[in-house]
């Protein structure tokens, strides 16, 4: 019950903020609504059990990208301008967006997803890591970390930090190549942004 209430609240914040972004006339007000929407999405991540992602969302989106957007707005347009915010294709865009949400909603509801949901997701995941340890190359690291990293008082077999530990192991093991490529992309993009914005 409390989970449903929390889901409703977080969803209202995320979607209300998003609606504010597209409904506000002033682009500065849009950016402020965008911050609210990002916070709502962070709440969704927290509800889904992705605690590290929720913190990352707050740090990067709310802390960095929003500030970047606000800076760009103040460096370019007249903040107080109250001109027409939408172009002539707004009605067409509304039709396209509503058909997209209708199609995706019907697909999401009617498809028989292979949902695997245990008694507690953490326990399921620890068991999965232990089972993968027999065949996998990087899984034993996780399993050893989970056993050795247990605090003394936590003997129920559930590692509370297992989410972050597994994420780090996955990023630097299985997904090492994409991790390195993404850091290179980020570096190149930021250097490019500096070069473009300077002259």
């Amino acid at each position, binding site marked *: 019950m409390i989970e449903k209430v929390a889901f409703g609240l977080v969803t209202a914040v995320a979607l209300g903020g998003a609606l504010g972004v597209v409904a506000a006339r002033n682009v500065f007000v849009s950016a402020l609504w965008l911050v609210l929407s990002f916070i709502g999405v962070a709440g969704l991540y927290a509800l889904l059990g992705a605690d590290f992602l929720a913190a990352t969302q707050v740090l990067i989106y709310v802390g960095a990208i929003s500030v970047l957007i606000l800076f760009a707005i103040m460096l370019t347009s007249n903040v107080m301008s109250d001109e027409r915010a939408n172009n002539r294709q707004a009605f067409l865009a509304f039709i396209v967006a509503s058909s997209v949400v209708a199609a995706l909603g019907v697909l999401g509801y009617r498809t028989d997803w292979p949902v695997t949901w245990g008694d507690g997701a953490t326990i399921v995941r620890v068991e999965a890591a232990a089972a993968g340890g027999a065949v996998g190359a990087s899984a034993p690291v996780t399993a050893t970390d989970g056993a050795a990293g247990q605090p003394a008082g936590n003997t129920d077999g559930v590692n509370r930090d297992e989410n972050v530990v597994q994420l780090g192991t996955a990023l630097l093991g299985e997904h090492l190549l994409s991790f390195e490529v*993404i850091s290179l992309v980020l570096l190149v993009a930021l250097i490019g942004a500096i070069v473009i914005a300077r002259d």
Partner: protein
Amino acid sequence: MTPTIALWWYLLVAAALFSIGLFGALSRRNAVGVLMGIELMLNGANVNAVAFWRYTGPSSGGGLTGMDGQVFAIMVIALAAAEAAVGLALIISIYRSQQTVLLEDFTSLHG
């Protein structure tokens, strides 16, 4: 035990976020507004990835550690940061030369 909130609720929220962002990206006159719409669309896709990770990921044999959904989401966040930095730098650069951020005034490549 079934989850309290069915998976399709999260999918619906993600689809709504994506569509609102799509509307913003298609209908805004201000280039910064279009970028904000794109950020909303990326967030919607991210919610989808994390929801599928939570509901079908851990024991469905996707990867060795079963964290693919969250890794995807982190990649998308990093790409979104890069995209925002480059996009806003472009907008600032165009504003320097054209004195406008309205997309219909960007016509120097118009034949």
